[in-house]
């Protein structure tokens, strides 16, 4: 009781009523653990497997699924690189190449880059925030199952030879029915709408989780940066995704139901598509790097044995990036012939957006410089992120230059730039994060020696594959070409690029081996192998299903480093605090200060998210094949699932008593 009163001064005023401290029911820790295990554990068998709402299971599934898509997208890329290794090659037909590059882009952007970060955030958020789950566990399960279903929907077209072939941004009218009569683009439109539901659901869940599901005392100035990153990305997605869903819906209507949104003959506007798409697309590309930058900001300092330099600046820069990120979409349209004056504003904004990125870069370097560096594999990956980010950043500044972008846009320079950003900031950060957090997730360490090889192959292969591409773009090689002539001077460079791609792929393969051996026979990790500062390292590895037996009380930004940092007398309480073992419960707090204000009854397993997703898959499948019957069956099933989901059910006891374990 006293501990809480110390740590949470708001207690006197607000913290009355339902949160009435009572002595614990079962003071024996082992007994408590067993009770919680029973309350939080999944149902046995298939029901539990399909019905689980545990954020950790969902997070891991997200990560595994997105890695499967990464590998599929990577294989597509390798086939493309075989075709492009030599001039005038005929390994692929133009149609095959066009489907491959389009599916590769769609896969990497939509099915890998965002979901892998959702997976990490899903896994880490409650652990870092000191909570037992996300705000809406069933919605969480729903967003995963919808993602999987949308991925299956998009990929089912591939073996049928009807994969999207309009590029990842599907410009109209190349994607209009008249010029693309097959089902390829319908797959794209419906697939993106489908996936958009998943993203939106997930984003709403993150936002509410942040507002409500934190340990007492976890005020906004104590949040890890990855939380800032994912939060910013989620808020942005709530605004951005509707633009692309609408754009896709209108395209689908144009293609199938005779509307004329984009059709000039009917008074429509092809450029409308580009505006809507990039209004979504640009914020989205920040959404798929900000959480990854957050991982670096949180994990790199652990290996430098000191807190991040400039926490407040970095958190502010994260948000600022996104705000400005909503004002630069026209830089994807510099060559569309819009008025130069209008374009100039967007060019200027695109220069400005480099500033918040510079904040992160210098914060990371300063953290290394003033830290005590352990040369671990995660450290190598996170540090390489800095360099690759800078390369992708300066090439980004080059494309921000309106005049010079008139040369660069739609060339291999852009292909180089986007891979530096996406692989450099997303994939390298993710791989580093797996080395860093897999011990937490699995309880086992990854082999550092093999890890260094992985790093070597990935880093050298990546730069070999993508650095020369800048040159290809500068000497005039357009992107999205299935072949090129021997007399154009592109041949030697392309061969180097292709070799680099295979070296890089070897690195990824070794990485998978590294994970597999770690899971099978890795050294046990213990709760805190790296000596980390944040709450996830306070609990066993792998974490128990209920995360925290006792909800911690947070007093500083680095609860596990308080003694070493000696930043005042405040101490977080990890071993005493709220013990909620009266049912599946966790604590809700006030949005800004993180003061406890309600006990939340958490929902148990449910097959409804899975059922709804299957029904949605049937619905979208029916729409795709143009069968009203199938669509109606799917739609009706989805509605039934929703009705069951939201049926009136008895509210839990009006007044829950809180217990304190001391």
């Amino acid at each position, binding site marked *: 009781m006293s501990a809480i009163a110390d740590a949470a001064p708001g207690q006197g005023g607000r913290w009355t009523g339902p949160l009435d401290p009572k002595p614990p029911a079962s003071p024996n820790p082992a007994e408590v653990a067993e009770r919680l295990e029973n309350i939080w554990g999944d149902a046995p068998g298939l029901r539990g497997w399909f019905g689980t709402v545990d954020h950790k299971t969902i997070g891991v599934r997200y990560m595994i699924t997105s890695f499967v898509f990464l590998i599929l997208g990577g294989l597509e890329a390798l086939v493309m690189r075989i075709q492009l290794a030599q001039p005038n090659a005929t390994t692929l037909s133009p149609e095959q190449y*066009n489907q491959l590059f389009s599916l590769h882009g769609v896969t990497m952007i939509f099915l890998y880059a965002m979901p892998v970060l959702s997976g990490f955030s899903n896994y880490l958020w409650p652990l870092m925030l000191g909570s037992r789950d996300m705000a809406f566990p069933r919605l969480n399960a729903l967003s995963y199952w919808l993602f999987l279903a949308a991925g299956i929907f998009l990929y089912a077209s591939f073996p049928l030879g009807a994969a999207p072939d309009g590029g990842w941004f599907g410009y109209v009218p190349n994607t209009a029915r008249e010029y693309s009569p097959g089902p390829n683009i319908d797959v794209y439109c419906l697939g993106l709408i489908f996936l958009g539901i998943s993203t939106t659901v997930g984003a709403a869940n993150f936002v509410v989780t942040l507002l409500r599901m934190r340990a007492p005392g976890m005020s906004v100035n104590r949040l890890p940066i990855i939380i800032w990153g994912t939060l910013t990305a989620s808020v942005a997605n709530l605004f951005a995704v509707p633009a692309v869903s609408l754009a896709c819906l209108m395209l689908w209507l144009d293609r199938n139901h005779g509307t004329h949104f984009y059709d000039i003959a009917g008074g429509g506007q092809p450029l409308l598509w580009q505006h809507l798409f990039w209004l979504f697309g640009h914020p989205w590309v920040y959404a798929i790097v900000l959480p990854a930058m957050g991982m670096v900001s949180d994990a790199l300092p652990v290996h430098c044995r000191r807190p991040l330099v400039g926490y407040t600046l970095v958190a502010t820069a994260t948000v600022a990036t996104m705000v400005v990120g909503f004002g630069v979409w026209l830089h994807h349209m510099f060559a569309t012939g819009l008025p130069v004056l209008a374009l100039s504003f967007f060019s200027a904004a695109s220069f400005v957006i480099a500033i918040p990125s510079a904040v992160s870069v*210098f914060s990371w370097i300063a953290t*290394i410089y003033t830290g005590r560096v352990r040369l671990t594999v995660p450290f190598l990956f996170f540090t390489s992120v800095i360099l690759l980010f800078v390369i992708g950043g300066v090439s980004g500044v080059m494309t921000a*230059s309106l*005049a010079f972008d008139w040369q660069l846009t739609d060339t291999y320079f852009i292909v180089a730039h986007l891979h530096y950003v996406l692989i450099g900031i997303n994939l390298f950060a993710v791989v580093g994060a797996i080395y860093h957090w897999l011990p937490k997730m699995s309880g086992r360490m990854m082999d550092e020696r093999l890890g260094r090889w992985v790093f070597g192959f990935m880093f050298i292969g990546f730069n070999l594959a993508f650095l020369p591409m800048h040159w290809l773009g500068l000497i005039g090689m357009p992107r999205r070409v299935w072949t090129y002539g021997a007399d154009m001077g592109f041949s030697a460079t392309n061969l180097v690029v292709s070799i680099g791609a295979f070296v890089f792929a070897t690195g990824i393969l070794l990485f998978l081996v590294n994970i597999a051996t770690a899971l099978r026979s890795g050294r046990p990790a213990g709760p805190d192998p790296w000596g980390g500062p944040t709450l996830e390292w306070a609990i066993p590895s792998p974490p128990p299903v209920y995360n925290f037996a006792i909800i911690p009380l947070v007093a500083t930004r680095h609860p596990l480093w308080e003694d070493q940092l000696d930043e005042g007398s405040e101490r977080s309480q990890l071993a005493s605090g709220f013990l909620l073992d009266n049912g599946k419960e966790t604590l809700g707090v006030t949005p800004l200060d993180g003061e406890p204000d309600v006990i939340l009854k958490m929902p148990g397993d449910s097959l409804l998210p899975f059922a709804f997703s299957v029904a949605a898959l049937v619905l979208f499948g029916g729409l795709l094949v143009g069968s009203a019957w199938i669509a109606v069956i799917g739609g009706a099933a989805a509605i039934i699932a929703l009705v069951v989901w939201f049926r009136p059910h008895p509210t839990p006891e009006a007044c829950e008593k809180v217990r304190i374990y001391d």
Partner: protein
Amino acid sequence: MTGTGGHAADRLREIGWGLSAVSVIVVVLIAGLIGLAIARGRRRLAAEGDGVGRDFGGLSWIYWGVGLSFPVLIALAVWTFIVTRAVANPPSPTALTVEITAHRWWWEIRYRGERAADEIVTANHLVLPVGIPVRLLLTSDDVIHDFWVPKLGPKMDMIPGKSNATWLEADRPGLYRGQCAEYCGLEHARMAFTVTAVPVNDFRRWRREQLQPQVPRVGRGAAVFTSACSACHTVRGTGAAGILGPDLTHFASRPTIAAGVLPNTVSGRLEWLGDTQGVKPGAAMPQVPLDEADRGAVAQYIGSLR
């Protein structure tokens, strides 16, 4: 960025090298700083052990880093706007207007004349007078394409329903390659064109020649052309007046066939006619069923359309 042929491209090349140089310097500097930071951090670890240290400051890095990046970015932005102004408008009023309409996957090129009768139409081959800025009006007949001659200047989209005006000037005579730069479907990779920049007098002569109609000819090739090709192609002066495909009136004066796919030689023409869909799958021209003799004759006929 090498071997430019005009002053817009020169300006772009300058800023391109400038931006590249700044980029390389920044990357090298940062790489150096990272190396320095790691060395320093390693030394600290060796000296102080790997316990968690206090917050040793370091904020000044961010202030310095941002403080130095900001003026550089401003300078680059200002330079950008100067170059943008220079490149967006021609140095002197344009004396010649060329309308280019993109089709999947070829270029229709129309030189406007003062009178309707002065107008000439060609395809996939742009001839420019050296030293004279030419106004281009770009549009598309189907999907979005993009007009780009890397060595002569900026690219510009060709959007259906919209006419984008830009300009082009070659200051040095030569042969330049142009290419569609916006993904436009199946044969996007092979939607190229050639630009020849010639001295003004040669340009005038070329234009006069292009204005001449062909004289109707007798013979097997001409006959086959009329029956098998004229539904889509025009040869001014003869009966052939199709408008679906490129105007072939002076076909033999163009360096390539099918937007850069084959050289315009005897064997190139035979190959194109013999296996149209094999050479350029998806092209709007169907495989015309001709026996070998007819094919030879018609190839010879179009080869004579100087």
